[in-house]
């Protein structure tokens, strides 16, 4: 790089226009000036690129750290005082809008770890999560540790911080293990997005899509399984199709872990693709029934077959759901 002295010298010895017009080799001072300018431009460009990289790196880093933080199970994010203060709001929603009823909470063991296995309903709003959290927290007290697992997108949404304080953690095997190791009651929905967006006419169908991770989890952590069966959520809108083909076409299954892109009719938007817009759920009556706890090893022996346990649990849940469906006289009204 030329120093300030050589730059001054080049300026004194004439301009580059003169050399170019003559078509001759520019004098040595001209070349020095060119080299110097090129160096300066190169340096400035390099600095700009480094700055851009730093800024981009910082932004990406922040977003990454923020997402990482949102999706990592920090069990301490659960705030019992916050839950207690917000139970009134949950109670109003559950009692007045959904006329919710939760039966047989006494089937949940009084203390210790427990894996609550629920059927998922009602799309991304999933009213049973609010209703069950309310019921569990008022029955056992907010002091008893309770976590539920939710899809990454739900936790990354603006509702994420609110849900985290209610004990919601990102759905993953490791997060569920961490919560059970803390002797919490953990609510999982094995059917996940596949089940929660099933067509409304499949409301009374348990559909875990063959996901048996919950059985492995219960065995690894030696936690009793307590099935939790809900009906009514699929009547809070009209789900026409899961849109699995659409999610696959748009590669959402690869990029965002979204296996479905539901097509539904819901107020106030009418026909909607995806369930991302805030919508008004229909005030369908929600009924939840808690089944007796299943000690997997006690019932199926020391080395149980996951398929057999899966069939048993889903069979029990399906029978209960059939019973709840038979009680309903009209959609939405209940």
């Amino acid at each position: 790089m030329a120093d300030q002295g050589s730059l001054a010298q080049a300026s004194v010895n004439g301009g580059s226009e003169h050399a170019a017009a003559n078509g001759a080799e520019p004098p040595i001072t001209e070349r020095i000036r060119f080299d110097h300018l090129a160096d300066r431009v190169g340096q400035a460009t390099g600095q700009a690129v480094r700055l851009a990289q730093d800024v981009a790196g910082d932004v990406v880093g922040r977003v990454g750290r923020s997402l990482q933080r949102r999706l990592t199970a920090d069990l301490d994010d659960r705030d019992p005082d916050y839950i207690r203060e917000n139970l009134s709001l949950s109670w109003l929603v559950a009692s007045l809008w959904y006329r919710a009823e939760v039966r047989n909470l006494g089937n949940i063991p009084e203390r210790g770890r427990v894996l609550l296995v629920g059927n998922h309903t009602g799309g991304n709003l999933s009213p049973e999560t609010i209703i069950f959290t309310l019921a569990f927290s008022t029955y056992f007290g907010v002091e008893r540790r309770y976590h539920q697992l939710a899809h990454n997108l739900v936790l990354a949404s603006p509702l994420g911080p609110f849900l985290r304080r209610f004990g919601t953690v990102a759905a993953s095997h490791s997060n569920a293990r961490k919560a059970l190791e803390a002797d919490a009651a953990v609510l999982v929905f094995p059917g996940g997005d596949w089940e929660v967006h099933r067509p409304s006419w499949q409301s009374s169908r348990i559909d875990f899509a063959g996901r048996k991770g919950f059985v492995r989890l219960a065995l690894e952590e030696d936690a009793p399984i307590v099935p939790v069966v809900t009906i009514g959520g699929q009547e809070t809108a009209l789900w026409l199709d899961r849109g699995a083909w659409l999610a696959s076409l748009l590669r959402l299954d690869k990029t965002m872990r979204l296996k479905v892109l539901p097509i539904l009719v819901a107020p106030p938007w009418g026909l909607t693709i995806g369930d991302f817009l805030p919508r008004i759920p229909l005030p369908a009556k929600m009924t939840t029934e808690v089944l007796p706890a299943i000690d997997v090893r006690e019932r199926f022996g020391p080395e149980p077959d996951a398929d057999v346990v899966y069939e048993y649990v889903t069979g029990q849940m399906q029978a209960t759901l059939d019973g709840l469906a038979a009680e309903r006289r009209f959609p939405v009204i209940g």
Partner: protein
Amino acid sequence: MRLNESVVISAPKQAVWDYASNLDNFPHFMSGITRWEVDGERRSGLGARRRMLIRAGSAEVGGLIEIVEWDEPDDLAWSSVTGVDQRGRLRLRDAGAASTRIELRYQYGVAGAGLAGWISEHVAARTISGHLRRSLQQLKRLVEHEKLRVEAELATKSR
């Protein structure tokens, strides 16, 4: 939210106290109670604790309560230790010959719940008030029936 119901029972104050202050009798006359379990060593008297839940709307609300006042045969009061903030009182007063006026006072709410808390307290008031009214009616029936049973038993023995 503070609610208050009362009833006159045709029985002496001590008889009403004997029945109503036996905490094991609470599920027999308290309407809406879904859970009433002993917590700790003491079953009765000052400092006795119970886990209590009442059905209100979509939830069973309540928590751990402790007897904080035991003034036989006039006043019995409890207060919440955990769960929804609540305070209840059974207040017995003479109401003429061999009659007792019993008042059931109940205060509840959630500190810090804001507007939603205020609305939910008022929405729940109708249900809770109904529970209190039915509880006192049931207590009146039980005590008066018990009084008649004892009188009949004494009459039989005296013959």
